[in-house]
């Protein structure tokens, strides 16, 4: 589904990613882990189009998307959430989600301005799609609440909803469970799994909570100092010496 080949990204002299390659299979929950500063978010930014890597290419469904703008990638079916919530805080949940549909809006200024006819029909279609997501993520009770007034865990859920409103085939999640309490995490984990299973969306996520990663993901890629040090099913990665070293220090210290 997604094929990342030999990505090299550096900011002036600082290398952020050096020669990272990996593949994401369709309908997988693929996790990227690694210590702080390993380059996880940079990698996600390369995929979503915020950064342009100096070398390497990214293929999405066989198509080379390396040169495409972020919005063009969104139209192809890549959506993301951010580590720090990026929603319109002064707007209602519903409006935030409808904005997620904006990229798929076909009505122009004229058609939308006149509203009746095509504009109305399209509006209803979008609203129905958004309502389906509201039902899916169980946020009916906050549909008309202003986002800024909501609890952090709920805002995170709204952000996921906004990303789903883009109807993506590949969903990039940047630490979806950061800063949540145990109950909120459990809910979020359920929604991530259901998104993959029920909606058939492929998920690529950065996550720090090892319990979550091991439970949810089918594939794990480990980064350390911009390099890929392991790639495989969670059990395999967990046992890898390089990973233990990156997280815990020298293996000899561990056994001592």
């Amino acid at each position, binding site marked *: 589904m997604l094929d990342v080949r030999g990505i090299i990204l550096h900011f002036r002299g600082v290398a952020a990613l050096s020669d990272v390659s990996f593949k994401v299979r369709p309908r997988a929950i693929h996790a990227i882990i690694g210590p702080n500063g390993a380059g996880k978010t940079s990698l996600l930014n390369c995929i979503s189009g915020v950064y342009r890597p100096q070398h390497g290419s990214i293929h999405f469904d066989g198509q080379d998307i390396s040169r495409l703008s972020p919005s063009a990638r969104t139209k192809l079916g890549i959506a993301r959430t951010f580590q720090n919530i990026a929603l319109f805080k002064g707007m209602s949940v519903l409006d935030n989600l409808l904005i997620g549909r904006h990229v798929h809006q076909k009505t122009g200024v004229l058609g939308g301005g006149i509203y009746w006819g095509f504009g109305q029909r399209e509006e209803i279609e979008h*609203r129905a799609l958004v309502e389906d997501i*509201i039902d899916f993520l169980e946020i*009916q*009770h906050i549909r008309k609440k202003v986002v800024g007034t909501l609890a952090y865990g709920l805002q995170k859920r709204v952000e996921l909803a906004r990303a789903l409103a883009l109807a993506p085939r590949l969903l990039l999640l940047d630490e979806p469970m950061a800063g949540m309490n145990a109950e909120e995490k459990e809910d979020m984990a359920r929604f991530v799994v*259901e998104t993959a*299973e*029920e909606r058939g969306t492929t998920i690529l996520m950065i996550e720090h909570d090892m319990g979550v990663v091991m439970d949810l993901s089918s594939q794990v890629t480990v980064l350390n100092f911009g390099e890929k040090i392991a790639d495989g099913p969670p059990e395999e990665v967990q046992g890898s010496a390089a990973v233990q070293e990156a997280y815990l220090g020298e293996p000899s210290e561990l056994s001592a």
Partner: protein
Amino acid sequence: MSSLDRLGHDDTFPKLLVRNARTMPDKVALREKEFGIWQSFTWRDYHDHVRDFSLGLVALGLKPGENVAIIGENRPEWVMSEIAAQACGAASVGLYQDSNLADVAFVIDHCDASVVVAEDQEQVDKILDLLEKLPKVRWVVFTDPRGLRKYQHEKLISFTDVEARGRALDTEQPGLWDANVARGKVSDLAIISYTSGTTGFPKGAMLSFSNLLGMAMNLHAVDEKRPGDEFVSFLPLAWIGEQMMSLSSALAIGFTVNFPEETETTAENIREIGPHVMFAPPRFWESMTSTVQVKIMDTTPFKRFMFNLCMPIGRKVADLRFEKKPIPFRLRVLYRLAYWGLFRALRDRLGFTYIRSASTGGAALGPDVFGFFHAMGVRLKQIYGQTEISGISCIHRDEDIQSHTVGIPIPETEVRISADGEILSRSPSVFMGYYKNPEATAKTVVDGWLHSGDAGYLAPDGQLVVIDRLKDVMKLADGTQFSPQFIENRLKFSPYVKEAVVIGHHRPFLTAMLCIDMGVVGKWAEKNRISYTTYTDLSSKPQVYDLLQREVDLVNEKLPDAARIAKFVLLYKELDADDEELTRTRKVRRGFVEERYAEVISALYGEAPEVAIDTTIKFQDGKTTRIRTTLLVRKLSMGKVA
């Protein structure tokens, strides 16, 4: 003529559904909010779904005399499943969706359910986990497919698949549905309603169509509902109160039942619907009142001014109505103004614009909350009854509402008090007995009289007053009965009282130990320029004693002469669960408290006007502090001191 006769031959739920689908096919029967829109089911849709599902159950092999258990949130499928089961000659058994696994397993097994209708993944998981212990269950039907796509289980089937089987059977045997409906008799078992016993396992009360519909019609006779009325169903459908409204009454009278989108959206959805009929337990009315009060504190000064200006007018009118006194002309004019200035908007906000019948039951509701709704013109009524009498035996009449009573019996119902002070009732709606438990039945119904287990008395005007569970009632030394909890609750209705402990078992008279509410009394003290330092200091102020004495006097006025509070003290500390004085659900641990405050109690029953206290209290963080103070004992004129 019994009120049941008014239904003619349409005397079961399935027959009434067929009647309604015939007489008003395009009127809305059910409404459910989904995807942000109210989705309607007409009586014809309702009927067709029930027919398909019912025949589907036949196709699955459900036989007359078997039972169907239903578990889930309030949804159209819930009520459809119930009527569908009944049309097969099976009884429906509702389960509470938040019950724990042991209770679910017990009820499903005890009621011999062969089919379980479960709403969603959460409930299906519960049932599938238990399935090994439930050999009698042949099918598990789910209504919401979400998350269940991958489930493979030979006993699992979806609601729509069952309906499809039903449609197939309908084309095969076209007359089967009509024959099944016609076969139902008014005396048939309709539902088994499990009541949570405080001790031991739940008991299943068997109720027939004649029980349920008789009660609905008798209630209707004194609390009218009309076809086309709106009702919002948000309490568990397994509960008899919700069965009475959303099924028996809705089917018999033909009003519309609305299901909220989610539990969290209930208040919002009530406002959207603007129901004509409401039935809810006290906690619903209480939380609504406190929400309003909190919001008023936060609102604009003008709105707050209007609230504080108009509310007392409404209260005054409500009080005069309670006392059945005429309302002076001047007050009438003021109330009109207050209506346009406040109550109209407030009622709209709460969803009470069209409300005609509002009732509360199940526990005591404070007079303050009661008055709040009457002030804005919502004529809230108390009801009283048990599952075993199909829900209701008493209700207030429109012209005679008092906050401390539960009204008078509905038609065809008699209520009397036994020699032990227990409330007994008799009506055609008294249940058929407990399922597979004849011993319990024999203990509950004696010579046709249902023994409620509640203590109560009939006021001189014939209104029933419920005191407490009979087993919690205590006796003074001279044999006078009293309920400490009843009196404590009434004391706690005062905003100044946080906790109250009433003492008097085997003693000559009643006394009370009160804990003041630091927040409210503190504010009051500030306003009245009384300086204080700590809780202990505040509660020993004579002015605070005077304040609390007025509150106790008010409670005493409503109590029988023989069981009035004679003396009280204000405790020097709040009762606390950390000190084991309260349970975690904030119930007083009577025995422990009486032991711990033995000194105080002996002072209450002695002659001394005060008692010296020297004690240590332990804080949450393990620190201790010593308290030395003098506790005043206040004697009241109203109480008898033998």
